[in-house]
């Protein structure tokens, strides 16, 4: 496998040819914000938070889904990118009903973390305040669609790591939402193994363990890179 050399923010870096901009940036301690990306899961490029600028290209590229190329010049933190990233965060907040003050993940949430990191302290967009439901039919877990940002981490971990494929996405555009089985109550699912991996990877309080109070839902994700590596070794 050949080595590619490129520049990120004028810093020379070298990468394996199969690596993405995001991977090589992280290896070099260059911060690129992400939400749908999670090490150990496949890449979907859904949230667009990791968009970067590549010299010579008019469009923006998702760092998680863009492979490195020889001589590439990447910029990860331009004013244009900062503006778009803040807009994405604001849109995610205004699209659902997050109401962080009364969320199990308050203070432990990837969306909040990114908002803070990117300097979002209010949203210019109107809040949509859609009517959304909560499914608490599972005996241990719940899903609160008000807080789902459709990153599909739950869908991917359930399919790729647990192998159950209980989760999926239904609907188009603004009507999209995650479902269990054939859009039937989670508690009556015949495929769910109740492993709880979806709970751990969820970036917000959309998927939660029951009997957790505000701010108590701590996520444990160490298992993911471990399981992925073990699978590759085998």
């Amino acid at each position, binding site marked *: 496998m050949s080595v590619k050399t490129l520049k990120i923010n004028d810093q020379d870096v070298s990468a394996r040819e199969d690596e993405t901009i995001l991977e090589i940036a992280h290896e070099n301690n260059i911060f690129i914000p992400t939400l749908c990306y999670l090490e150990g899961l496949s890449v979907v490029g859904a949230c667009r938070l990791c968009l970067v600028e590549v010299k010579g290209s008019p469009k923006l590229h998702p760092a998680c889904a863009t492979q490195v190329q020889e001589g590439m010049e990447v910029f990860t933190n331009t004013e244009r990118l900062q503006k778009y990233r803040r807009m994405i965060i604001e849109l995610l*907040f205004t699209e659902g*009903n997050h*109401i962080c*003050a009364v969320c199990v993940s308050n203070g432990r949430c990837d969306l*909040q973390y990114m*908002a803070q990191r990117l300097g979002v*302290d209010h949203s210019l967009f109107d*809040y949509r305040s859609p009517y959304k439901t909560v499914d608490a039919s599972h005996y241990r877990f719940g899903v609160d669609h008000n807080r789902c940002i459709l990153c599909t981490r739950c869908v991917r971990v359930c399919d790729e790591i647990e192998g159950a494929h209980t989760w999926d996405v239904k609907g188009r555009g603004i009507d999209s939402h995650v479902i269990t089985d054939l859009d039937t109550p989670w508690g009556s699912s015949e495929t769910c193994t109740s492993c709880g991996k979806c709970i751990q990877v969820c970036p917000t309080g959309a998927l939660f363990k029951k009997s957790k109070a505000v701010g108590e839902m701590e996520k444990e994700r160490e298992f993911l890179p471990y399981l992925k590596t073990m699978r590759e070794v085998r």
Partner: protein
Amino acid sequence: MRKVSMATVWLDGCSGCHMSFLDIDEALLQLAPRIDLVYSPLVDAKTFPEMADVTLIEGAVSSEHDLEKIKHVRAHTRVLVSLGDCAVTGNVPSMRNPFSVQDVVQRAYFENVSNNPQQPQEAVPGLLSRVRPVHHIVPVDVFIPGCPPSAQAILQALTDLLDGKLPELNARFG
């Protein structure tokens, strides 16, 4: 040195942000010589002054009264500060937004009331169709998120403002 005239206003919120302001405890004594508290639920003044240097707004804009008040306050304030999640995002009061006002009133004044259910007709201002953050109605200069914002964050913001700086808090949002 002229004291900075400061007001605090309570719209649709729980007063927790005002409590958190009081929670800066002994630091209130540092602020006191520099601030003239001209209008607030904490003092007796009944009318908003002609011009306040700084006004802290707690709460979202939910009723006709809130709407009227925030417009008046903005017109008579130099630096308007959204204090806390209700002012910044709508927060808990905005949880009624997915429902119609009629449904909300029905739920609050009839469905959950066993004794003489009725809707108050006097002295209670009408609800707006949607609860909105303050900056969606009038321009806001400073945002202090948090439910409530920590006493430390409020103290830092006020100290910065008194020193003539716009605070950069980097607080958690949402």
